[in-house]
């Protein structure tokens, strides 16, 4: 049939490089403190400034944390790991090389399972290795740049997914990152703070016509500092590449940055030639031998991982898998849920409340659950008060907001708020009894005799001994009048 053409369908391939700063007290190769922020260049020494003559000595805990992460990600642990130098010039890299791991990473050949709209999927992990972070660049008003080496030498773990990629959509990319973050925070390896850059992800993306075996040219996206940005960035990039191909253009191998404000990826750098990093074994550091006994010990000390917690939450509390996912997003969420549910004895209400009101408030305040002033004990008290009818569900929201804001005990807040009856259900009941006692007045009012309104309010106030919220009473009356007029 001339003129008709079936539009080519494209499939996406998404790989992911994730960098996580490790939760150590000191840096990777020196004793400077590993912390976020602070005055520039105040956590620096000859080693992390790369001063001539300085030498690195590797942090034992950092090695152990990477082993822990690799085990949690189902990797094989290399019995002999070594450090290598990755050579390139950039002002945030003080030695002109980054100490990293090249051909003998600590972990390799792992996986993690994700669940997305497309169903369950196993994402394979090629390697997990240990390296050091770089400094930070800032711009000076003169147009020059300024370097702060506080972050230089902070222990950094890199997790790279396997090729060919297992992921094909933005949903999966986000699900992978959510799960990875859940695991890393659960095992105490990373604080998972994407907004502070302690967890960073760089997806690489390509598309190819459905049925084609050859992978398309891939691009890398940087500057993705939230799950939402990852989802939007990947989605945008997939669409951009498909549009290019549909137009008959080709995709260039390049690094693109996510521009949150514009909601699109923008070109950062064209990668014409592969960078030549001239890796070679780091002569200043000896190999690390990780024997089976050590691996066994670290494995034995792993806490319950999110997948196991998720299964258990479904079994034990009757939650749906999606609910369990949300409640195991970090170890802190799981702990919060289990504590609150245990105290109040109502797992269903606890789950609903956490996924609804708690998540909403945390989101609005941009807080982590660990920072929440209203702990699981507060939530349990609140839910108990609802359950035994001391407060209504609606009132509970107000009490919870106040508790979230101030950290005050819900019982105290409810007692104070209880002095005035604002609850619509409670006031509605009073209103019903007043209407029943004064049917003529009510008829007149509904017929348009506005002067009768004051009388009705007066009756309600009398019945509640003045505790009714007059504004709320007025609102309810008018609502009921409108209903009565129909």
């Amino acid at each position, binding site marked *: 049939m001339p003129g008709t053409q079936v539009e080519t369908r494209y499939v996406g391939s998404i790989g992911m490089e994730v960098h996580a700063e490790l939760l150590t007290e000191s840096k990777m190769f020196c004793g400077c403190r590993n912390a976020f922020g602070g005055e520039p260049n105040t956590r620096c020494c*000859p080693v992390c*400034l*790369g*001063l*001539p*003559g*300085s*030498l*690195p*000595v*590797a942090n034992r805990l950092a090695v152990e944390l990477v082993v822990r992460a690799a085990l949690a990600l189902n990797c094989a642990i290399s019995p002999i790991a070594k450090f290598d*130098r990755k*050579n390139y*010039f950039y*002002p945030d890299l*003080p*030695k*002109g*090389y980054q100490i990293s791991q090249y051909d003998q990473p600590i972990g390799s050949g792992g996986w993690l399972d994700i669940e997305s709209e497309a169903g369950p999927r196993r994402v394979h992990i090629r390697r997990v290795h240990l390296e050091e972070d770089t400094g930070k660049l800032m711009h000076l008003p003169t147009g020059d*740049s300024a*370097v702060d080496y506080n972050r230089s030498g902070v222990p950094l773990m890199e997790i790279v997914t396997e090729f060919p990629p297992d992921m094909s959509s933005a949903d999966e990319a986000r699900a992978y990152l959510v799960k990875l973050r859940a695991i890393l925070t659960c095992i105490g390896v990373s604080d998972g703070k994407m907004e502070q850059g302690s967890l960073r992800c760089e997806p690489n993306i390509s598309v190819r016509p459905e049925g084609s075996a050859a992978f398309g040219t891939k691009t890398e996206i940087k500057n993705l500092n939230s799950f939402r940005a990852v989802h939007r960035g990947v989605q945008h990039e997939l669409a951009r590449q498909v549009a290019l191909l549909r137009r008959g253009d080709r995709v260039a191998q390049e690094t693109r940055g996510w521009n949150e404000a514009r909601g699109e990826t923008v070109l950062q750098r064209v990668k014409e030639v592969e960078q*030549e990093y*001239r*890796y*070679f074994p780091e*002569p*200043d*550091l*000896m190999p690390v031998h990780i024997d089976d006994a050590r691996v066994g010990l670290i494995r034995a000390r792993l806490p319950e991982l999110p997948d196991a917690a998720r299964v258990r939450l479904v079994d034990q509390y009757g939650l749906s898998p999606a609910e369990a996912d949300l409640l195991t997003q970090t170890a802190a969420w799981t702990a919060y849920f289990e504590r609150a549910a245990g105290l109040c004895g109502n797992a269903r209400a606890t789950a609903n409340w956490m996924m609804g009101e708690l998540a909403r408030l945390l989101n609005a305040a941009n807080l982590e659950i660990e920072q929440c002033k209203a702990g699981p004990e507060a939530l349990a008290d609140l839910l108990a008060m609802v359950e035994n009818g001391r407060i209504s569900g609606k009132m509970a929201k107000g009490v919870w907001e106040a508790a979230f804001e101030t950290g005050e005990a819900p019982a105290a807040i409810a007692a104070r708020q209880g002095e005035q009856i604002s609850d619509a259900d409670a006031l509605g009941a009073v209103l019903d009894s007043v209407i029943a006692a004064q049917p003529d007045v009510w008829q007149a009012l509904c017929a348009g005799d506005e002067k009768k309104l004051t009388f009705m309010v007066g009756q309600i106030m009398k019945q509640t001994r003045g505790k009714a919220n007059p504004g709320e009473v007025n609102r309810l009356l008018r609502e009921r009048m409108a209903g009565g007029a129909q």
Partner: protein
Amino acid sequence: MEPLTQRSLRDLRDAVRSGEVSAREVAQAHLNRIAEAEPSVSALLAVTADDALTQADAVDLARSRGDAIGALAGVPIALKDVICTRGVATTCGSRILSGWKPPYDATVTARLRAAGAVMLGKANCDEFAMGSSTENSAYGPTRNPWNLACVPGGSSGGSAAAVAVGEVAGSLGSDTGGSIRQPAALCGIVGLKPTYGRVSRFGLVAYASSLDQIGPMARSVEDAALLLDAIAGLDPLDATSVDAPPFRAESAMRGDIRGLRIGVPTEFMGDGVDGPVASAVRAAVEALCALGATAEECSLPTARHSLATYYILAPAEASSNLARYDGVRFGVRAAGGFGHAGMTEASREAGFGAETKQRILVGTYALSAGYYDAYYLQAQKVRTLIRRDFDAAFKRFDVLVTPTSPTVAFGIGERSDDPLAMKLADVCTLPANMAGIPGVSIPCGMDRGLPIGLQIMGRSFDEETTLRAAHAYEQATHWHTLRPEVAC
């Protein structure tokens, strides 16, 4: 009475300890000698007179109070300028570090300070310790005290000349391919490269990290041993330093070498070795045998590949070690060049000398894609073969003896245009760096008024046997007592 500047390090230490002289007198006498000899030899890049006198006064004060004083209290020393000294310029003989004052001390610097040694200055060297003549210093060559028209050897030429001429009683050098032993030989003093890992490298500006080692230079084996005693030992700041049984200077000075088995590798006695040098080494072997040792010729078949192996591995590591000189955090920033990358290129172009650039280029090439296996990895494997040669030899012998340098000192400028000839100066010393074993050079003869050096190599961490052989030979001969006549 012998002038203070001619007395041994041990003598000076004992004299200060007993109160025969004050540390200040010792320091002042050496500062005077520096003022006298420096115009001729140019051994030092910086003289730290004020600091030195302050340190000396502290020693004298402590002694007068009856406080404990360090093992080297009052001993005047110099440090090669690749060793970091807090607040004192450390240039590595390079323009790119002109005026750089490290905010920290190298571990050896701190240990010598703690031992009460008095640092008089920083010694000249080839830029970043790359060279065999000290002509690659951006601050001009040092001259050989025995013949001012000749080189002192290198790269620790300043450290060697300063000791030979009596400016200091001892010094520290660094040795990556022979940079302590070869200048010691050419200047007629004792120079020891310890086993890799014996002395901390923390604060030693790196040339080739897997080969570099700091070691002592002095006018006698015992003096070198005393210095080693003070600087050796495990350092938590250097992950390549080794927790070996401690070295004890006294036990190395027992003098008895009866039954010592000496191997003489034939590879270092033939072509390329000057006749008088080979003769002097043979005579030295005979002298050792006269003291009760036995000697036998042997072979290190792969050792002849040391030069090629070295000139791949060392530049490869150097190309990476020298990447930090980018004009950002320290050193000299050159004007010109656009943007940050242009600034870095301009700074490196202006800051590095030709030899340093050559080694950076060779090393970068050896590590680059497509050449890594053919050059770098191949060299690392050959290095394994060289080490095996030594392992096999040390099953039969306690020490191995060779010339330190195939020739005596050559003229300044003589080999400048022939870098390959220059590099041949290290053929005898390179293998010990490949294997990581200790090697000492001691004076064993003279040729046309210039000293000849004897190299004795020992097993890993067996400095004791190595130095015992060297000490026994020294005590039986007079070569170490000869002194150059410079500006006296």
